[in-house]
């Protein structure tokens, strides 16, 4: 079996990674929002929302926690996935 890069098949794979993973920079250097799950909700709303909220001092703790969690998650070699059993219960 050969890996594919056909865009219509792999766009979600790409978005999952480009938006949610990658090298982590110190939060104090960044102006953008790292680690926020941008897909599934409006991309722009989340970006604008968190930035604006932070500008006014809101959700800064939440933002820090998100960043911390992202750093921790990306630092881990492997993560425990929810089992298929757990997911199945939601069907």
């Amino acid at each position, binding site marked *: 079996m050969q890996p594919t*890069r056909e865009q219509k098949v792999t766009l979600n794979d790409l978005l999952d990674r480009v938006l949610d993973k990658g090298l982590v920079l110190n939060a104090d250097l960044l102006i953008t929002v790292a680690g926020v799950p941008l897909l599934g909700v409006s991309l722009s709303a989340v970006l604008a929302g968190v930035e604006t909220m932070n500008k006014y001092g809101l959700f800064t703790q939440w933002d820090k926690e998100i960043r911390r969690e992202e750093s921790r998650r990306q630092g881990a070699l492997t*993560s425990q*996935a929810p089992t298929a059993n757990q997911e*199945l219960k939601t069907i």
Partner: protein
Amino acid sequence: MPHNKNYFLAGDAGSLEGAAGALPAGRYLYCVIEIGDSLIQPTMRGIDETYVYAIQYRDIAVLTHDCKSEPYNSDDERQVIDWVLCHEKVIEAAMSSYANILPFAFNTIVKGKPGEVAADSLIHWLEMNYSRLKSKLKIVCGKKEYIVKVFLDCCIAATELMNTDFELKALQEEVNVSAKGKAFLMQGKLQTLLKQKLADHADKLFHDIYASITPTIAKYQVEKVKPPEKDELMLLNLSCLAEKNECEKLGEALEKINYSGVTVSFSGPWPPYSFM
């Protein structure tokens, strides 16, 4: 900024911050690259046709473009996806030009700090994280990321279970011969049992498939599975960091996955986003 001049700004980086009173400019980051004795300047264009250049510290550099100190943001989802694809295109061009790279996520933008322009902040970061970045570059050297997703069609699996599982078959027969009221209650019991058997079946498939493919690759990461869509359950979501020969072995192992209702998606090669 008290850096010794062990770095190099390609082009005229930093000039945006020169104008008195101007907003501090940001630097949009694509990836960290490892360079040899001398830096070969990138030739690709970035998001919105921007000029991509390298900010170098010792034998590593960051590919970047000058931007405003604000994230790329649009209400037009197509526009955002185009930006994301452009981000990816620059990183992939870097992968072929420099071989060894560490990708940043989309919209990673460095701002200047009070008394420090963004380019200096970035160089400072490279300086402070030099050893960590070199170790990561060593880990990903010669390898690329591949994504394996395994799905189960629950309808097919349920039908198969109903036809093969002794307990389910017996209960179904009981439903068939029971009076209307009792049959209704038995039907509920059957559904609960089927759900449990299906969950056990999915768990077993996960373990069997996981055990059959992970020995082919040295470095992998189990990702969260996505919520089920319609009747399709994601059993396994794996990010793999693999060399070319490992990728071939992985492909062979995936080829052998042959269970009723199970489909496999195999994508790549990608920059090593999941191993940062």
